[in-house]
């Protein structure tokens, strides 16, 4: 019997998810026993044509990491969708948009302008150059992918069967997901391949979490000497554990840093950031109007704090366009 074929691909991502696969270490050999890797650009020399040559549905599973920003990423995602029986959104970016998704706070033209005109690294005494989408060279016409207006999650571009959260997904969850899929033990469509409880349940500091937190003041990690045992919320740090899915063995609180929410929400939550900010605001011990305003102002970069990994997946998806001028046009008779 031939081994089931799988593919790995990356879209808008940092490479950390690929690294996480390699981090399986010797378990990777066990995975290689179970499956045949048919496509993995970062590690093996396969080309797009190799994927195109496969029959539709021939891949048992395609693991796609990264958010979707360019037309090329869209094309590859659609191609792999066609060739794979199951698509797994691998990691925070594919699942919720991830850190690249914070680009949805800006317009695409502003991003290109910053990168190609204003960044210190392009100040070299020559006039700034924006790459042309089409250019003619001796060998023929070259085309660059389109830079789309917004960052999208994989699920906003193609149909996704399973989700593997984390930035990057923890090695244990990857190994169990791959072996389950290779062994044909398929969970229900749409399943998140991680525990469905909040991070606090597996946090080593959980026992020190007071019944009533009553946060007096919010502080940032660099402003305090963090007690390595005490619940981080009890120390006034914005730890998103109460709103975040478990499965990482509380790696960040274990490393003396607050949870930033990369595993996303537990099931039933539509908008992670809204739920996380709700949890944090509820802990404030302040009733006086000015006091509440002052405490909330202590949380630097609220969108970056609560939507660090999930802005494209959120209900608002991106920063709203300026509407004032448009409104006036419509009001005018």
């Amino acid at each position, binding site marked *: 019997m031939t081994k089931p074929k799988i593919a790995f691909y990356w879209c808008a991502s940092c490479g950390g998810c690929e690294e996480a696969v390699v981090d399986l270490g010797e378990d990777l050999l066990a995975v290689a026993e179970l499956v045949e890797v048919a496509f993995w650009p970062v590690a093996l020399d396969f080309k797009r044509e190799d994927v195109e040559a496969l029959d539709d549905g021939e891949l048992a599973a395609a693991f796609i990491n990264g958010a979707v920003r360019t037309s090329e990423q869209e094309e590859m995602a659609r191609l792999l969708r066609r060739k794979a029986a199951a698509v797994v959104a691998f990691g925070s970016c594919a699942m919720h948009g991830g850190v690249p998704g914070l680009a949805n*706070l800006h317009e*695409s033209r502003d991003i290109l302008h910053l990168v190609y005109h204003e960044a210190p690294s392009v100040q070299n005494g020559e006039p700034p150059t924006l790459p042309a989408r089409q250019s003619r060279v001796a060998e023929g016409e070259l085309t660059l992918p*389109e*830079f*789309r*207006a*917004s960052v*999208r*999650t994989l699920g*906003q*571009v*193609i149909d996704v069967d399973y989700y593997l959260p984390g930035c990057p997904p923890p090695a244990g969850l990857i190994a169990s997901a791959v072996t389950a899929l290779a062994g044909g033990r398929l969970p229900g469509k749409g399943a998140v391949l991680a525990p469905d409880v909040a991070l606090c349940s597996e946090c080593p500091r959980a026992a020190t979490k007071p019944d009533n937190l009553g946060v007096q003041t919010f502080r940032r990690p660099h402003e305090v000497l963090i007690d390595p045992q005490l619940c981080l919320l009890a120390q006034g740090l914005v730890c998103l554990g109460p709103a975040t899915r478990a499965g990482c063995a509380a790696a960040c609180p274990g490393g003396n840093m607050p949870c930033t929410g990369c595993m996303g929400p537990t099931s039933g*939550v*539509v*908008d992670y*950031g*809204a*739920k996380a*900010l*709700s949890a*944090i*605001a*509820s802990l*404030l011990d*302040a*009733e006086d*109007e000015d006091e*509440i*305003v002052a405490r*909330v*102002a202590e*949380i630097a*970069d*609220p*969108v970056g704090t*609560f*939507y660090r990994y999930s802005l*494209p997946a*959120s*209900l*608002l*998806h*991106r*920063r*709203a*366009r*300026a*509407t*004032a*001028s*448009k*409104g*006036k046009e*419509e*009001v005018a*008779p």
Partner: protein
Amino acid sequence: MFQPKIAAFFCTWCTYTAADLTGISRLEYAPSVRVIRLMCSGRLDPQFVLAAFRHGADGVLVGGCHPGDCHYQQGNHMARRRIELLRAVLRDLGIEDQRLRLEWISASEGEKVQRVCNEMTGELRGLGPLCLDRPQREAAELAGEPR
């Protein structure tokens, strides 16, 4: 003229009862408000506010009992804290402060419901409609090009 849509979340004990009084007293106010009754302003999940914006509301109005009057002791204080933090997030997402309004309106303040609804309608007229992109697959495929 632009007729804004306002999703109004009123607590059943104070503001919802006040809105009833507004009607009984035959006080007219802008037809822009869609009232949703909650047991307490503390029941307001910030997701409700975002879902309202997502589904076409130009503004969200939250009404609860005056501080100290909450039927459940602490609910309105919870709402106050959550809305303050939610507003900080919305500001960075390009949604103006006036689009999310919290008011304490007791059961006897029917005329305050009228005043607040009219005021907010006027402010939203000045701001214009809220334009949000749709992230859905279909929308992206339809557009094809960067918007």
